[in-house]
């Protein structure tokens, strides 16, 4: 009797869930001074010309909150955002229809547990080019490009920001306050101008390992995301 009651409860819960939930899309879009940034397209910032050729990063534990309570989250703990294509710069979450939310939060990077636990399939597969080969650890954020202002080989800049061990743990928490009614699309802008200006001003054009230079870049992460 108890088992049949439980089954009826589960049936109605599932039916209710199907009617109340929608699949929403979280998409990321990079911007430079409010203009959309496209991979391999020339840009100017404070009269410095450059092109970004590769921009990828990990988003972990993506969550949407209302009054401190979780209302939606990504089904995948780790999402890899890659601006090579639109499809790779977004992921899905389950939204409750018409439910408001006031916080979008996530971590930029991969946690230390995944960094020491061996190899994973999917988004964390080292085949994605987001895992260092000469030492262990994920690259949390990869920004590559060219600029005549970079006096480096082939005028390239390459920022590979990663590392999981103190004092060079590069994962950063991002918390974005918002005021939204339930909607099925969230567009998160990555505002690159402050980070790029810092890079050009300080001539930090190559980061390939955890260290103080990488920390100075990672410390931008909590403040460069906003909701459109």
């Amino acid at each position, binding site marked *: 009797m108890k088992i049949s009651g439980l089954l009826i409860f589960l049936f109605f819960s599932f039916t209710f869930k199907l009617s109340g939930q929608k699949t929403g899309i979280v998409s990321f879009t990079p911007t430079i001074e409010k203009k959309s940034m496209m991979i391999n397209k020339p840009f100017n910032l404070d009269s410095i010309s450059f092109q970004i050729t590769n921009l990828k990063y990990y988003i972990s534990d993506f969550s949407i909150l209302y009054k401190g309570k979780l209302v939606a989250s990504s089904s995948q703990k780790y999402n890899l955002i890659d601006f090579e294509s639109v499809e790779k710069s977004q992921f899905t979450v389950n939204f409750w229809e018409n439910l408001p939310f006031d916080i979008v939060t996530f971590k930029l990077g991969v946690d230390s547990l995944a*960094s*020491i*636990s*061996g*190899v*994973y*399939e999917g988004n964390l*597969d*080292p*085949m*994605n*080019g987001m*895992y260092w*080969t*000469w*030492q*262990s*650890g994920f690259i949390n954020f990869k920004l590559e490009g060219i600029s005549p202002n970079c006096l480096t080989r082939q005028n390239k800049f390459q920022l590979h920001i990663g590392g999981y*061990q103190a004092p*060079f743990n590069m994962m950063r928490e991002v918390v974005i306050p918002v005021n939204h009614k339930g909607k099925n699309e969230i567009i998160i802008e990555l505002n690159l101008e402050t980070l790029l200006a810092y890079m050009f001003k300080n001539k930090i054009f190559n980061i390939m390992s*955890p*260290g103080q230079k990488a920390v100075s870049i990672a410390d931008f992460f909590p403040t460069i995301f906003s909701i459109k």
Partner: protein
Amino acid sequence: MKTFILAFFVVFIGYISQPDSLFEYPSYFPEPSYNFKENILDSTKIRLGRILFYDPILSKDNSISCASCHSPYNSFAHTDHSLSHGISDSIGNRNAPALFNLAWQDKFMWDGAINHLDMQALAPISHSGEMGSSLSEVVSKLNDSPNYIKLFYKAFKDSTITGAKVLKALSQFQLTLVSANSKYDKVQKGEQTYTEQEKNGYLLFKKNCDVCHTEPLFSTYQFASNGLPVDSTLNDAGRWKITARKEDSLLFKIPGLRNLSFSYPYMHDGRFNTLKQVLNHYTSEINHMPNISRELKEQKISLNSNEKIDLIAFLLTLNDPDFVFNKKNHFQTF
């Protein structure tokens, strides 16, 4: 009751899913540190890993395999070569270490740069002075091979080859490289006895070496400076490069001492060809640098020539020909 039966069945399946026959070690060995639950050993995966290990397809120009620098007859080291070799006759800056008892290690490479066996193969595959390729390039080549597609399907029940599957298969084979049947082991098991010379060597070993080269694995697998002067042609700072901590300067991984007859030359840069040279270093050639290991700082190793011979006699009891010449570890193709 049904729940209990189901739970019992799940536990039972879990128990039998890791066949003991694929990974055996003596009772006096510690528990392995490798998490087998995340990569349960399976004979088809081990075979696949073994084929990959011996296949130069892992290198950019299909010329270098893992076995090129980790030969089974040298206890998976590279005898006669002080530094590793790579594609286009390139030469690396470290001595290829012997590969055995990897399930008991959680840091790999001489500087501990790699934190998990599954990730270790990425380093040589990608290094320009070793295989000069990339994991994605390797996966692409394997996906073009009908033989490999079949093997991966057989092993993983999925014909799509991924980087993770390649690395897990390589780990599977390497995990089975257990060296535990040397004379030392046979003495431990009561099957043989030491000679008087070996017995004396064992006492000297316990007094002078055991604290870093701890039985029965003959290493703590930690990092230490053993007072080797820096080779100015390499300027290798060891673990400092990985941790960026000054106190880790010139620290290298303490190697296991099994199979020394098969795996010379010795040290991270292969500078010593004989065990006698190694013992001479520890007794009279140590460079007392600031961060030399506490053990070497506190206790000077003093051995006369007879004692050195006795100690070497004991070290030779750590040779494991059953491991080195075991055909199950040797070359395998499709």
